[in-house]
C-alpha cells in the first residue's frame, strides 16, 4: 500500500515537473470577455513559476485549508492547469484571481482581501495586541503605585504569645548575619 502510494506520488511529481502535454483538441480558452493584460512570459519556466505563485494563493476546492498548488487532487490539478494556461495567454495575477473569484467567490482566495468587513481579520490581531499591552501596562502601573505607598504598620497583636514572638524575631534579626 505504501509502495503504491509512493509510486503515485512519484508519478504525480514527475507529471508536475514534466512540460504539459499539449492536446491539439484543447484550444487554450481565454477568460470570457477579458483580454490578457500583456504578453505572456517568454520562458516556459517563468510561466511555471508565475502559475505556481498564483495557484499558491488559490484555495483547493476539495481540500481543507490547502492551496491549489499544494494539492494533488484532480480538482486542484485542473486549477493548476487552468492557471498555467491563462498565464501562458498573458493574463496577469490580478486578472486570474478575479476570474476565480467570479466563479467561486472570494472564498477561493486563501488570503482575504483587506476590504470592508475583512479589515477585522487583518487589523484585529494588532488591535488585540495594543489592547493587551495597554491592559498589562495599566495593571502593572497600578500595582507599582500600590507598592510605592508605604505599607501601613501591622496592628500590634493582642495575644501576648504573638507579641513575644515578634519581639524575639526583631531581636534575632542582627544575629542571623553573625551566625553566618
Amino acid at each position, binding site marked *: 500500500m505504501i509502495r503504491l502510494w509512493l509510486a503515485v506520488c512519484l508519478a504525480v511529481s514527475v507529471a508536475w515537473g514534466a512540460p504539459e502535454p499539449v492536446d491539439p483538441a484543447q484550444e487554450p480558452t481565454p477568460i*470570457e470577455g477579458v483580454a490578457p493584460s500583456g504578453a505572456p512570459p517568454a520562458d516556459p519556466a517563468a510561466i511555471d513559476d508565475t502559475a505556481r505563485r498564483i495557484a499558491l494563493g488559490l484555495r483547493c476546492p476539495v481540500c481543507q485549508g490547502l492551496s491549489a498548488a499544494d494539492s494533488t487532487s484532480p480538482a486542484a490539478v*485542473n486549477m493548476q492547469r487552468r492557471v498555467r494556461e491563462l498565464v501562458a495567454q498573458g493574463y496577469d495575477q490580478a486578472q486570474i484571481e478575479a476570474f476565480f473569484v467570479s466563479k467561486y467567490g472570494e472564498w477561493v482566495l486563501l488570503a482575504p482581501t483587506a476590504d470592508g468587513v475583512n479589515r477585522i481579520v487583518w487589523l484585529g490581531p494588532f488591535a488585540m495586541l495594543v489592547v493587551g499591552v495597554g491592559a498589562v501596562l495599566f495593571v502593572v502601573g497600578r500595582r507599582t503605585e500600590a507598592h510605592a505607598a508605604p505599607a501601613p504598620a501591622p496592628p500590634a497583636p493582642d495575644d501576648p504569645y504573638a507579641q513575644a514572638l515578634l519581639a524575639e524575631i526583631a531581636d534575632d534579626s542582627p544575629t542571623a548575619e553573625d551566625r553566618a
Partner: protein
Amino acid sequence: MTPERPRRGRVNLVVLGLGLAIVLPLVALLASGFGSNPREVPSVLEGAAAPGFHLVTLEGVEVSLDDLRGDPVVLNFWSTWCQPCRLEHPALQRAAQAWPDVRFLGVIYNDDAEKSRRYLAQAGSAYPSLVDPGGRTAIAYGVAGVPETFVIAPDGTIAHKHVGPLSPAILQQYLAPLRGGQP
C-alpha cells in the same frame, strides 16, 4: 477582612465584563461557524449568465450551451466515483423522461470516459453526458465537488445551484417556475 470585600467584588465584575466582551463574540463566531459546512462554497453564479461551453458527449456529439437557449437546462456535474451521484442518478433519469421540454445534460467531473460509459450502460442514461477536458467547464461553473447541479433558465441565466444529491421534489421545485406551469 470585611472592608476588602466590596473592592474585590468590583474588580471581579470589571474583569468578568472584559472577559465576556472578548469571549462572547468569539463563541458566537464559532457557534455560527460550526453550523455551516466548510465545504459548501457560497455560489456567486446564481442570477449570472451561465458560462458558455462547447463540449462533446460520450457518444461524440458536439453540444453548445448557446444551442439550448430557450429551454430550461439542468446541468449535472457527476462522476462514477461519487456515491451521492449514484444516489441521485435515478431521480435525474426519471425527471428527464418525465419532462422532455427540459434539456438535461451531465458533465463528467474528473473521471474516465470509458468508466462513465460502462456505468451509464448499466444504470441507465436518459440524457447525454459531456466530456470536460481539463475540467475547464467545471472551473467555469465554480464546481468544488460532485454532485453539483445548475438549473439554467431559458434566458441563459443560472436560476439555481444545487450542491449535493437531488431528489425528485427538489427538481420539481426548481423547474416548476421555469416550465411555465406545465405538469
